């Protein structure tokens, strides 16, 4: 098959895949249906303070897998839903930020700075349109970069990296995540080390289960999904329970402001926003491609850069549409670029990407990494078709964003009014159900409660959870690759320092930690 045929096969796999149902003789493909529902639910969840896209992905993943099963046919519908959620929740996050000054997601924090002043001056509708336009443009830009870069990068990786270099590269990604996320690189490292420690239970080369104390409970290791959901979701739920305990939610709703009738966004206005969107989208994409630094930093940087560029009448922070555009373009352009390290190296860098890896890992038949982008001409490479199917899903979700996204954005403002004491127990129940549905054993639930407590303690001690999760996921690959690198070197104790490239990676790992420690101590 030629490159074009692969792309086309991927597109067809999405749009002519198995049908969900028929409307007037037109079959609705299941993948398309999943993208649409993921996108719409994502907008609602993004708009709900206390919930986020990753949360929805975490809870829906086990349920999706139990519905679609473990065949490669399940990959695209499940990926489609996750992609829809990823894009929908980013758009949705801007809504409460603009309308009520309460950001739905942390990335939308900067959106409140100009979005809410616009609402107060009667321009809520315009602010929403600006946010949507910037968000959809940033998203498109990021997707294009992903489509063009990921295959190219993957092929480069495959030809230049051996076992040793791959091991060093994983170490580099882990130290990068540890250094960048959270308040101090040292806490990040502690979190990552914990992740590797827990992942080493019950795994390893030997037939005897490591660190299991001879018990059957630990013999099979800790289910990945229990650890990830426990630390990421349950930890957060426990913290909000505590917050609710301490403070009764003040019910002061922001006063309604009379809104201007002319809230359209003219072509000229859009053109004026374009430079801000372009710069932010570029920044967001670069940041998204690096592991560990998510959309929140992208939004902050995008806003700050926009502020420097800005010379208009209304200054940033007083209701400048450019401020909203700069923020939204930056945080939306992260999601596509996030997948570059996932698809080319198999290394997740951000929470959203973690769930795509988890999905691929649980379903099987798709192993993110260089082997995906093998353009075999004689034999069909099914993974490559899935990869292009994933790209097609992202493009379709982006199209949804351009077409119906704006209408839905205006509807979801109401989600801010859902009180936390109603929401959080619901989240807890849903998470526990989800884990039981996938693992069908109570051990998995006990493990998750344990990791929920760990997640809670980590938040109390300001230790970031993301390095833990990423280290937990990468630990197995890291161990295997290190063992392989060691074997290939004929048992040379200095095997990691024999290749110039791996020395560079290792030096960089130390450099990142030192660099970020210094920067943060000076603050």
């Amino acid at each position, binding site marked *: 098959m030629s490159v074009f045929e692969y792309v086309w096969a991927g597109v067809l796999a999405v749009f002519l895949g198995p049908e969900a149902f028929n409307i007037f003789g037109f079959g609705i493909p299941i993948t398309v249906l999943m993208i649409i529902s993921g996108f719409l639910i994502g907008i609602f969840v993004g708009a709900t303070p206390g919930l986020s896209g990753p949360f929805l992905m975490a809870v829906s993943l086990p349920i999706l897998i139990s519905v679609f099963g473990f065949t490669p046919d399940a990959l695209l519908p499940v990926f489609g839903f996750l992609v829809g959620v990823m894009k929908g929740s980013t758009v949705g996050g801007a809504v409460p930020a603009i309308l009520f000054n309460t950001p739905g997601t942390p990335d939308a924090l900067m959106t409140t700075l100009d979005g809410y002043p616009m609402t107060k001056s009667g321009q809520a509708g315009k602010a929403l349109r600006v946010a949507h336009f910037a968000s959809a443009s940033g998203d498109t830009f990021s997707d294009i970069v992903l489509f063009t870069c990921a295959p190219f990068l993957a092929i480069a990786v495959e030809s230049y990296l051996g076992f040793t270099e791959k091991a060093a590269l994983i170490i580099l990604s882990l130290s990068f995540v540890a250094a960048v996320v959270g308040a101090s690189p040292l806490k990040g490292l502690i979190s990552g080390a914990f992740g590797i420690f827990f992942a080493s239970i*019950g795994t390893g080369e*030997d037939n005897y289960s490591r660190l299991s104390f001879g018990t059957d409970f630990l013999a099979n290791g800790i289910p990945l999904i229990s650890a990830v959901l426990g630390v990421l979701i349950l930890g957060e739920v426990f913290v909000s329970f505590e917050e609710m305990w301490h403070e009764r939610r003040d019910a002061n709703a922001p006063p309604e402001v009379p809104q201007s009738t002319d809230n359209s966004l003219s072509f000229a206005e859009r053109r004026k926003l374009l430079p801000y969107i372009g710069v932010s989208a570029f920044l967001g994409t670069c940041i998204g491609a690096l592991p560990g630094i998510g959309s929140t930093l992208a939004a902050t940087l995008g806003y700050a850069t926009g502020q420097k560029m800005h010379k208009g009448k209304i200054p940033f922070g007083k209701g400048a549409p450019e401020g909203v555009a700069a923020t939204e373009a930056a945080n939306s352009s992260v999601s596509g670029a996030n997948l570059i390290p996932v698809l080319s190296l198999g290394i997740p860098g951000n929470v959203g990407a973690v769930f795509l890896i988890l999905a691929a890992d649980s379903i099987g038949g798709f192993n993110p990494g260089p082997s995906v982008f093998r353009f075999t001409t004689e034999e069909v490479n099914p993974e490559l078709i899935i990869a292009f199917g994933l790209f097609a899903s992202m493009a379709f979700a982006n199209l949804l964003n351009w077409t119906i996204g704006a209408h839905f954005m205006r509807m979801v403002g109401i989600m801010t009014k859902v009180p936390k004491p109603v929401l959080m127990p619901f989240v807890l129940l849903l998470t526990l159900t989800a884990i039981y549905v996938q693992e069908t054993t109570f051990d998995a639930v006990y493990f998750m409660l344990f990791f929920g407590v760990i997640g809670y303690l980590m938040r109390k001690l300001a230790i970031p959870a993301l390095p833990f999760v990423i280290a937990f996921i990468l630990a197995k690959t890291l161990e295997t690759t290190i063992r392989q690198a060691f074997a*290939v070197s004929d048992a040379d104790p200095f095997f990691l320092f024999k290749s110039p490239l791996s020395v560079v990676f290792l030096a960089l790992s130390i450099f990142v930690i030192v660099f970020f420690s210094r920067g943060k101590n000076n603050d």
Partner: protein
Amino acid sequence: MFYRFIKTGIVIATLAASITVTNATEWSPSGPIKLMIAFRAGGGVDTQARLIAGDLQERHGWKIIPENLAGKGGAIMARTLKAEPADGLTIGMTVTEAITYSSIASRNAGYSVDDFTMLTTTTGSQMGLFAKTSRGWKTLPDLIAAIKGGQKITLGAMSPRLADGAYILARENGIDFTTVMVKGGKGALNGVLADDLDVGWGAGPQNKSVLAGDLVNLVSGESKPLKVSPDAPLLADFGVPYIMGAKFMFVAPAGLPEDARKVLTDAIIEVVSDPNTKVNAMINKAFSGVETISGSDLDKFMATLSAQDQALLDASSE
């Protein structure tokens, strides 16, 4: 005329089938059957197990619940299955190697061949030592010559048993391999394709690329030549009297009553051998085709394999 023959044939076949079914209904499961799968979802064992489970449900009305108990090269499933009651309501699908070699090789495996009632094998692997065609080696002697000429060769093996086999192959032929442990059936394939490894053991996944001409099987690890590479010599020709391949098989806990064993075995064989089932098509395409060894033949076969694996272990620890 011709059609009448076929019709008669079909009638006779149906009658024969119904007779065997009537005879076989002496024992029937008193509840749902739990089918433990020793490897992860999506692999060769898992795919076969789920296809067979579907056909068994359809033909006999049994309720079968497949469950993956992957890990430690099949040892996790073996340990769990061993502890289940031998009432025919819990069976497992695994590979011969996980029952024989794994239980002997590890210090405290927690199970042995005697802990199981063997039901039947379904098919066998197509184990070959493969390399990229572009390296220019046609069969094993070319590789041996290259190593003797001073090339350092890395070899990917997915199980300790295959690593042992490679060690003996090297020792008997006066060469050295640098053996690298890889994960799963695709580990060696990816390693060789990405030029991280020079050669690798493959149980069958390599054969698509062999047919496409990208890879070549240098030697067969089976007792017979490989289907896709009939010209590749056998390991036995190079001083390795051990079979590196494995068979896929169904097992139950030890002490399963004879009537239950027979009913379950016959039912599985019937599904696997029927050319109209998906599992039949799958094992013909990906593995060695239908190979059903059952009953006392299988007991003998497993005893031979155990003795062979013990000899392999002894030979590689000399």
